[in-house]
């Protein structure tokens, strides 16, 4: 905010009193320093990254991009989330401190986007994994659209009552389900190192007999679907 326009520092109004509630003050301070997590899995992040630059400059909204989920209040899921990425996303979300907000950025994270038909691995909408506050459509959304979503999120935060938020947080947990997939034994046989001249001491200690035994015990690959 421009210092000259800031009415609190005006000489004539220096003795004035501001009345507010602790709730409003808390909300105001929170929405003024939304720190987003640097999370991007595909092309949406290119648009998001341009916001960090000087042209769109989202630091003026108090958004300081954080690389650690422990310091972030907001996660913009910029990009397609696949079944392989889903556990990481849920884990990142769980590592963020309360209160935390989610903006589902782009068509992929709202419905699966162009991958929503006939894809075997795309999560159809990130709201199946984590609770979403603002849905931001676009493929990818323009940086202006991201700023619009942030404005809407700031409005939402400003109207928030602390007790409601904690109540909804307890109810609205992120979705976890067990898929009954079994983790298969790794088929890594380690024969990459066979041709190298250097051998680590640990492999040198193993006698050739045990080495061949362990090689033959490598399971054959399951080939049937």
């Amino acid at each position, binding site marked *: 905010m421009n210092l000259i326009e800031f009415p609190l520092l005006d000489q004539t109004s220096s003795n004035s009193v501001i009345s507010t509630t602790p709730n409003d003050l808390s909300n105001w301070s929170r929405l003024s320093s939304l720190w987003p997590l640097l999370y991007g899995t595909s092309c949406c992040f290119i648009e998001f990254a341009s916001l960090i630059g000087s042209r769109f400059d989202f630091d003026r909204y108090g958004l300081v991009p954080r690389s650690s989920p422990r310091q972030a209040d907001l996660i913009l899921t910029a990009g397609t989330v696949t079944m392989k990425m889903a556990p990481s996303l849920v884990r990142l979300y769980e590592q963020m401190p309360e209160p935390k907000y989610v903006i589902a950025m782009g068509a992929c994270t709202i419905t699966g986007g162009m991958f929503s038909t006939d894809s075997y691995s795309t999560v159809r909408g990130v709201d199946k994994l984590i609770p979403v506050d603002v849905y931001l459509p676009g493929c990818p959304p323009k940086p202006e659209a991201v700023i619009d979503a942030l404005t809407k999120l700031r409005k939402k935060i400003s109207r928030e009552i602390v007790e409601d938020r904690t109540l909804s947080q307890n109810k609205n947990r992120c979705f976890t389900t067990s898929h009954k997939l079994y983790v298969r034994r790794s088929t890594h*046989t380690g024969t*990459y190192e066979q041709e190298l001249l250097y051998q680590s001491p640990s492999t040198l200690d193993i006698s050739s007999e045990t080495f061949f035994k362990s090689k033959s015990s490598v399971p054959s690959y399951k*080939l049937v679907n």
Partner: protein
Amino acid sequence: MQQGWLSNWLVKHEVVHRSLGFDHRGIETLQIKAGDWDSIAVILYVYGYNYLRSQCAYDVAPGGSLASVYHLTRIQYGIDNPEEVCIKVFAQKDNPRIPSVFWIWRSADFQERESYDMVGISYDNHPRLKRILMPESWIGWPLRKDYITPNFYEIQDAH
């Protein structure tokens, strides 16, 4: 139909193969049996095909066989149009085993892992044949024609 250099050479040495014709740039496509591929790959490398341009795999037809495709190029200095050849190796779906060319062209490493991941071709002698794109706990081969997508909650349509 005219025959390419490699096809003639293989005929001379009585190696079973089949010419699948030429593509739009006049590059010969050869079908080679999975059992012969190991030795023929070495022959091609010794001849001078030192660059495996791409390796990919596909499911030919529902109920049909799987194919592993190799595009080879002979890279030399001062050559404008290098020699190229395309090799297709077919494998049956119930036991798809094809010898790995990793030890000849090292760039086949991730390509063969992806082919294993997507259509389930098992490349013999590959040093670490495991899934590369899908989660390691995934069951099934997603790019096969007979693959049925699991009805996971995350994969169901968004409402």
